């Protein structure tokens, strides 16, 4: 069992961070051995983290049982097994529930066992050792309960200082491009072969939009001044930008909703239109919100799912399926997949500009555009590719992680990112040979969403992230004086991101991020459709479509302002979904309009199944709190075989040194997996 063998920890949203490393409290009554332990623990603390209480205990519920120490700090609850190195700790999110098993009330009795349910579906079950240490058990328990009570008030992570103790200060190349420099964007643009596009520096100082990255891609012919003007007419200044250039010639764009209150002049409209059109003669506007759940829906479903997956969930076994259906979580997963599959056909089948439009452009646009890329681009299914994808479409694009994951306690909590991970897991499950990363990688990503040691998921906008990491020392004009200048020496360390997996995971665990069943021969380079001439046509687009309700409808114009009433401003929601009855089916031609041709879909394109029986529950993630369900998940046989293979190869090599390792010895080294290939 991969997940069981390590320490576990849970974060508690901090009350107030005091970047004071030296202030770890040590209980004076400790025995020498424990004292040592205490200092050892302290060395593993994050700056500003204080150990509030600890007690020796035995982690139960998983085999083998581990003895170790349960520690409660002001940031998290962590269980540190004896003999484990600090770096093997896994940190996870805020607590959702503390439950004491044997004694009824935590404050009156000395607990024998404590059960902690993590918000990320994890369960930590620790039995305390008998024999003189009961006071400590009591202490740690009440500390946890207290910390939990405090953290339920709205608190900010804002103050956490993120310099990493113990990290060598040597400059370190990020494992993937963090897209914080224009060079990163340029490299990525070239990689995609987006020749009609350029990196715009118009937002370098975050004065177009703080939620946008400093750099993004705009059509080559568009001037920065036009970009600035055009973006002003979009919600929160999030105008159309390139997400992905399909090698076949199509472009996938994303943008916010039209800012209806604005009154653009003709020139502005032309700028907006040409940016949406991106030089293609066909433009398809995709109404992102259509047929997808609302943020509230997602949050509600996630809460229900969490309740259902608790170990003492009241749902009876024979009612499990309808309870699962009742959460609607899988329904939402399915609708995301369905929509993404539709869009990827739109992008793949013909050269055109496909624009994802969502009012905020920070939630489902990212989800859909990443899913579309996963479906259509084999390179996005590699470990590196996927991480860059998330960095680009979620982190850099300004998905409000902090708000959506509920770390701030704000009301806009909606785990859209977790929904996305579930969608990816479904793909992984349906196409086990097409992804380089494994389920464990997704789990690690899932759990990292709340880790307080890197900035990646703990900020709402690129601006805030950059502010914290001291990127703008040279841009004092936007520098808010409320924040103290970070120490100069720290700026290197602050480059750490969630992608530095070795911060939190051991190399064996990182090895498991690799999907042993990945069969790269499945996606040779020849999957690419021949590059079709892109129609960089000046002038208005010849056809404009709205993709909504699972169908294409022609639109008169791209922008809502030119004539009124506008199409998108009214919202497409009133459009009835075409009623498809069995009778009409017989006559109706399905498929793409004939002039688009029976374009054979390229072999690299995955079309996911999204039928009821095909959408599964991600058990290894959601049922982690129910060890009885978890334990039996049989070990991945492929990796078992791979181990045997390498063992045999090793044996052979020892006997016959002259036998060249050949292709057999595909050495799997965590560094090669995660480091950049170029």
């Amino acid at each position, binding site marked *: 069992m991969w997940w069981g063998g390590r320490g576990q920890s849970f974060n508690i949203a901090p009350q107030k961070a005091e970047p004071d490393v030296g202030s770890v409290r040590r209980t004076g009554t400790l025995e020498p051995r424990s004292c040592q332990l205490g200092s050892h623990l302290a060395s593993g603390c994050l700056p500003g983290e204080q150990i509030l209480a600890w007690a020796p205990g035995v982690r139960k519920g998983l*085999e083998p049982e581990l003895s170790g120490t349960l520690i409660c700090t002001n940031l998290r609850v962590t269980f540190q097994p004896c003999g484990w190195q600090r770096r093997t700790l896994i940190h996870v999110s805020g607590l959702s529930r503390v439950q004491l098993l044997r004694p009824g009330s935590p404050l009156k009795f000395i607990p024998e066992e404590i059960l902690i349910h993590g918000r990320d579906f994890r369960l930590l079950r620790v039995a305390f050792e008998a024999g003189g240490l009961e006071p400590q058990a009591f202490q740690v328990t009440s500390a946890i309960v207290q910390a939990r009570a405090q953290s339920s008030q709205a608190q900010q992570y804002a103050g956490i200082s993120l310099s990493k103790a113990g990290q060598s200060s040597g400059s370190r190349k990020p494992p993937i491009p963090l897209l914080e420099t224009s060079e990163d964007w340029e490299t990525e643009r070239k990689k995609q072969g987006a020749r009609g596009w350029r990196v715009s520096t118009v937002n370098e100082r975050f004065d177009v939009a703080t939620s946008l990255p400093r750099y993004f891609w705009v059509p080559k012919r568009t001037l920065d001044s036009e970009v600035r003007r055009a973006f002003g007419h979009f919600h929160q200044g999030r105008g159309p930008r390139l997400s992905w250039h399909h090698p076949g010639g199509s472009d996938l764009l994303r943008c916010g909703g039209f800012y209806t209150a604005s009154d653009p002049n003709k020139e502005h409209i032309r700028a907006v239109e040409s940016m949406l059109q991106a030089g293609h003669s066909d433009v398809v506007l995709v109404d992102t919100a259509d047929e997808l759940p609302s943020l509230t829906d997602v949050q509600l479903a996630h809460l229900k799912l969490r309740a259902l997956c608790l170990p003492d969930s009241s*749902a*009876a076994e*024979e*009612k*499990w*399926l*309808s309870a699962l*259906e009742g959460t609607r979580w*899988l*329904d939402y997963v399915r609708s995301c997949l369905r929509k993404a*599959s*539709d869009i990827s*056909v739109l992008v793949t089948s013909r050269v055109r500009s496909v624009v994802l439009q969502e009012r905020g452009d920070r939630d489902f646009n990212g989800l859909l555009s990443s899913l579309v890329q996963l479906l259509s681009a084999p390179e996005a299914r590699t470990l590196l590719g996927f991480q860059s994808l998330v960095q680009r479409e979620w982190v850099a694009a300004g998905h409000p992680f902090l708000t959506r994951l509920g770390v701030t306690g704000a009301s806009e909590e909606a785990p859209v990112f977790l929904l996305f991970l579930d969608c990816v897991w479904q793909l992984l499950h*349906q*196409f*086990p040979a*097409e992804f380089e990363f494994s389920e464990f990688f997704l789990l690690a990503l899932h759990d990292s969403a709340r880790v307080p040691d890197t900035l990646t998921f703990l900020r709402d906008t690129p601006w805030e992230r950059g502010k914290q990491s001291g990127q703008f020392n040279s841009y004092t004009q936007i520098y808010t004086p409320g924040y103290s200048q970070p120490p100069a020496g720290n700026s290197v360390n602050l480059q750490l991101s969630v992608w530095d997996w070795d911060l939190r995971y051991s190399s064996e665990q990182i090895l498991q991020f690799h999907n042993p*069943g990945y*069969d790269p021969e*499945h996606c040779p380079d020849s999957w690419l459709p021949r590059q*079709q001439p892109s129609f960089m046509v000046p002038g208005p687009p*010849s*056809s404009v479509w709205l993709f909504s309700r*699972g*169908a*294409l*409808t*022609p639109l008169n114009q791209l922008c809502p302002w030119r004539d009124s009433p506008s199409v998108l401003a009214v919202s497409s929601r009133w459009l009835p979904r075409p009623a498809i009855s*069995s*009778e009409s*089916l017989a006559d109706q*031609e399905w*498929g*793409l*309009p*004939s*002039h*688009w*041709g*029976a*374009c054979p*879909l390229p*072999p690299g394109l*995955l079309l*996911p199944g999204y*039928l*009821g029986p*095909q959408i599964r*529950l991600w*058990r290894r993630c959601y*049922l982690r709190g129910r060890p*009885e*369900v978890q334990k*039996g998940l*049989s070990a991945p046989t*492929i990796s078992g075989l791979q181990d045997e*293979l390498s063992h045999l*190869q090793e044996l052979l090599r020892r*006997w016959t040194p002259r036998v060249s390792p050949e292709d057999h010895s595909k050495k799997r080294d965590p560094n090669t997996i995660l480091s950049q290939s170029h």
Partner: protein
Amino acid sequence: MLGKGVVGGGGGTKAPKPSFVSYVRPEEIHTNEKEVTEKEVTLHLLPGEQLLCEASTVLKYVQEDSCQRGIYGKLVCTDFKIAFLGDDESALDNDETQFKNKVIGENDITLHCVDQIYGVFDEKKKPLFGQLKKYPEKLIIHCKDLRVFHFGLRYTKEEEVKRIVSGIIHHTQAPKLLKRLFLFSYATAAQNNTATDPKNHTVMFDTLKDWCWELERTKGNVKYKAVSVNEGYKVSDRLPAYFVVPTPLPEEDVRCFQGRGIPIWCWSCHNGCALLKMSALPKEQDDGLLQIQKSFLDGIYKTVHRPPYEIVKTEDLSSNFLSLQDIQTAYSKFKQLFLIDNSTEFWDTDIKWFSLLESSSWLDIIRRCLKKAIEITECLEAQNMNVLLLEENASDLCCLLSSLVQVMMDPHCRTRVGFQSLVQKEWIMGGHCFLDRCNHLRQSDKEEVPVFLLFLDCVWQLAHQHPPAFDFTETYLTVLSDSLYIPIFSTFFFNSPHQKDTNMGRESQDTQSKPLNLLTVWDWSVQFEPKAQMLLKNPLYVEKPKLDKGQRKGTRFKHQRQLSLPLTQSKSSPKRGFFREETDHLIKNLLGKRISKLINSSDELQDNFREFYESWHSKPTDYHGLLLPHIEGPEIKVWAQRYLRWIPEAQILGGGRVATMSKLLEMMEEVEHLQEKIDERHHSQGALPAEAPSLLRSSARLSSLFPFALLQRHSSKPVLPTSGWKALGDEEDLAKREDEFVDLGDV
């Protein structure tokens, strides 16, 4: 390229393909008719098979890509099958055809496989039976293996329609006599065609030797003996000719109630405990007779309860477990989820998939069977008790549970040969009424209960949860479930061994000089080529290294994860008392005064069960030891391969389990290759030159429904219905687009 008129007029008719697989519209029929007569596929008849009626110009609808396509051909009905003969070959020249059934073609439906027939009259679907006044324009056939066929009869001559429809209805629905089964015509005609697979080591349990061998294998021969008292079915025609009873049981006792009321041995556990079964004594009202029954049972219990026999725990399956009615209702609801007439229907049900699934309660029934089997296992393994399964005839749930327990406890039953022997022992010789339960003779729908399918589904759950523990694949289970309806194998076409023997002419000399030689389903070469048979074998299964050949189950083969629950002295003594009490219950039960739930609701037993279950699951699995399934809500799954395989919407191209299989096989091969190399170095031989099925070698992306995905998709998946498309029919636009299209094509 496409002309304007076509685009504007019809919404894009595709150019007809070289074969006449094409879109069919009523107005086009006349143009196609000429082609129809040109190509015809000859009907392959099995020995003894007779053509009964036929109809030409029948349109078989192909439900794929959500568009209505059709193939013209001939619909025939023989005394074995309904077959559609059309030019389908173009779709078949790919890898999937290698997994072709030699007996049943893609468009063949054996008469026994027909579940329900519907006719479409003026767009309305009605079930068809009996004499028809009006003949339908479309025939819909639902099969028991969940295929759905649509045959359009609109262009067929009227008298042909009459003949074929009434022929099909008659031959599939009218009650039949056993002697009229195709099985006999086939066996008579194919007398010399008795190829027996030399590799087929399945134990048939039709000789005394087989039973002795099984006793030996399980070390049951210390306390149990095989008896031949029923030779020639002199005692009972429900019992097999040979069976096993406790050693001290006198033969007269067997005769006393025609074999009822005596404990019959099923299997012995490594610790000496045995699984027994017993059919209930007839219910009597008369006090005197009751008294006789009581003293008879007392006598039986005295023999069985003395040491060396363990305490007996009785599981009364007819009173507090599933009823056959439950199973029947659940399955008929469940199968409706998969018998899809068109994709719209599919999408309608899809929204409520989980709750529909749950309301059928089929999965819950599976769970209950698995749970009961775990309970029995716990008694045998942890409590050292004998378990006696009690049922009216000991031939339905008794078969299911005893074989399930053996699959879980005896690794031999997880090999293919072992599994087949198990089915042979518990189901065929156990007298499961296949003829009635499958309703092969169409005599009573009420008797039709898919008990055997339920068993296969339970085994599938186990195999799905523990893939390396099974020698066979889910494909094996699927084709086995299909074989239930192929009337050339005798295996599943009799109610009891007695019925089989009497009808085979072994007993009577009047008809033939030599007895008929019937095929057994275990001879897989009848259905599949060796290449296709590779798909029945699980490449992940690792055989247990056989260190000493003689001893399959000795002390050293003790399960590695057994008995973490020692039966302490203090615990066992109350059980002694408990047992006495229980015997009384048993006798009461047997005598018809059912006292329900006294045994099973005991809290103590529930706790034992939980503890046993949890402690097993908390340890690493030994695939050659005891194997328990997970039975929590999320763990019981739909056997997708069997139930979804004919639904084109459900396939994932390039995905599913099969996607990793080729990689896996490649690696297995490499491991074996290296092992061989290492063995060579050790100067010892014996590494198996294993062949991976080359079926999976092709670079083409297989569908998740492999190997059953015969409905291949020819075009790209329909994704975007273009509702607004026709509204756009602007000529200029079209012209312009056409140019672009040409451009694209030229690149």
